[in-house]
């Protein structure tokens, strides 16, 4: 598991927004269980970044969802971090909400490009009792 210091180094862990529920903060462990890197926005400087599991996407989260997150997010726990385009985060955030999870930190690393896609670092953690209780 990546620790907070390493996350901070890479800009993944950021101050939690004031609007985030206290339960979300309490539910977030010290690190993430896996990291999603979007090859469109995560540059070469991230090549050495490691986490227990790293998923590389090209903006399309279909395979990540179908083969990994759909099952994992039905179970309690599992904190996911990522550096992705805002479009990929939009999809993951909606899917996360369906499974009792929220984006508990979000930081824009690069403003929107001509297509309206920004680079975002984020952490999604379980907040609903159905997935925070063991």
């Amino acid at each position: 598991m990546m620790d907070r210091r390493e996350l901070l180094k890479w800009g993944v862990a950021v101050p939690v927004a004031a609007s985030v529920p206290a339960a979300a903060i309490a539910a977030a462990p010290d690190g993430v269980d896996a990291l999603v890197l979007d090859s469109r926005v995560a540059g070469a400087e991230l090549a050495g970044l490691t986490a227990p599991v790293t998923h590389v996407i090209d903006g399309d989260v279909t395979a990540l969802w179908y083969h990994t997150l759909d099952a994992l997010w039905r179970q309690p726990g599992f904190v996911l971090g990522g550096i992705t385009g805002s479009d990929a985060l939009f999809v993951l955030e909606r899917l996360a909400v369906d499974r009792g999870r929220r984006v508990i930190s979000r930081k824009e690393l690069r403003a929107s490009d001509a297509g309206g896609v920004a680079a975002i670092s984020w952490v999604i953690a379980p907040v609903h009792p159905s997935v925070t209780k063991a």
Partner: protein
Amino acid sequence: MAVLPPDLDASAFALLLEELRGAVGADWVWSSDDDLGPYRDSFSPVWDTAEERHASAAVAPADVPQVQAIVRLAGKYKVPLFPISTGKNYGYGGPSPNVSGSVVLDLKRLNQVLEVDDKRNFALVEPGVSYFDLYRHIEERGLKVMIDCPDPGWGSPIGNSLERGIGYTMPQFRDHFGASCGMEVVLPNGELMRTGMGALPDAKTWQEYRYGFGPDPAGLFAQGNFGIVTKMGFRLMPKPEYYRTGLITVPRRRDFVKLVEHVNYLSDSSMCGEAVYGSPLSRLMGDSQFAALATKLGGPSDAEMDAAAERAGLPSWQVDLQFFGPEATTKANWEYAKDRILSDIPGAKAIDGDHFPLPATEEQLLNTTQPYQTGIRRAGALGVPSLGIWRIVGDDGHVGFFPVLPRSGEAVFEAQRVLGDALKEFPLRPFFSATTAPLYWHSHCFQLVFAPSVKRSDPDHNAIVHRAMKKVVAVAAEHGWGDYRAAPIYQDDVADTYSFNNHSLRRFHEQLKDAIDPDGIIAPGRGGVWPRRFRK
């Protein structure tokens, strides 16, 4: 932004929430701003304006008896419920209600695939089942049926079909409500009803004969507010053995008329799947001189467009054809299509496309080996759910207007000109030009698309989009083209255009609504149908 249900004070609302918690458990009732954030319409052009519709609470029942209990509580407090399946109706309002203060009834926990029969080719599902769920259920069991899913595929078969959504395979499956068969509904008084053969105890044909006996009310629950659908059946396509594609181009603008007539014949004869039309000339829209011609007021002449095509060395139109079935029949149908069209339209050409046995490989699903530029999104075409389309959704989403047109080339030409001219006053990218091709989603009509993006950081842009949406609905209706589906903020505008005989259809719906749901417990305003209480 805390809101209360209509005509309810804070103390009564607190009592309602307490009773809802008693019915479903405290963990499944939400009323804080944070918790209700996901129930806003992320794509709304009226985001953070007075026109945005906000829920007062959300509740997620675990089963049908809990749905019934919630409906009875809503009746007791006269609080509108807004049912959603998975809430992914983006571009058409997402999970947001018609009436601010409604309680969103989130059916995501009713998520069982109840039955898939690959001998009689149907499925029975609950509303929280997504297309991904149904696809996984079928694949993991090796069942020999194929789903027809929208793109993206994260929504639910029930929610999508009740919105009259579409897919991309064969004609009899692309119209998702048309492919439904049998539903279970919680009525506004909390009673449970089944339609079609489901009304006959012990019938084994609920998903095979949709009508039963007597009037069939199933259509009232699509884009309607007469009940909450808790189970629904769908016809499924037997998994085809083989898939084949081919492209046909025609040289002149007017050739499109004959091309459409031929493809109508192929489609209505069940020889091909979704036909994807396009104009190779659209590649020239980056050229300001050509763009000015293609969007000129009143439209360009055929001769002007033909001259431009000739200069560019491009055909005027193309159609991607898709064939499903045994290899031999896909080949025979493609050969027939080529013979039929090329023998009738001088200068028409055909190019053989990819063809392979099913299931497709990952590479085939990516559709990278087609020997020509194709408009087909292969995953959807083969009934494989995908989320990849989100890569091409810009800004903060979009709203959508999809007018229904006759399946004729002339209708497309007229709509290009009328809608293009009508939208010239708005500083938006042109959606309609002489190169705009129709969508052939619903099986017996064409549609065009106007889907301007929204930007939360730019309220002025959103206000332009909002005005443009209202204008295009009205102008289209003046020419006999109605929208097929709309976000709550546009549903009254669209419903107003279906006005034959002094709005006799709306008055009929209102009479029904007044009879079975006078207090507007189920989604008042949905589909433009308001009960007496809200018509004041």
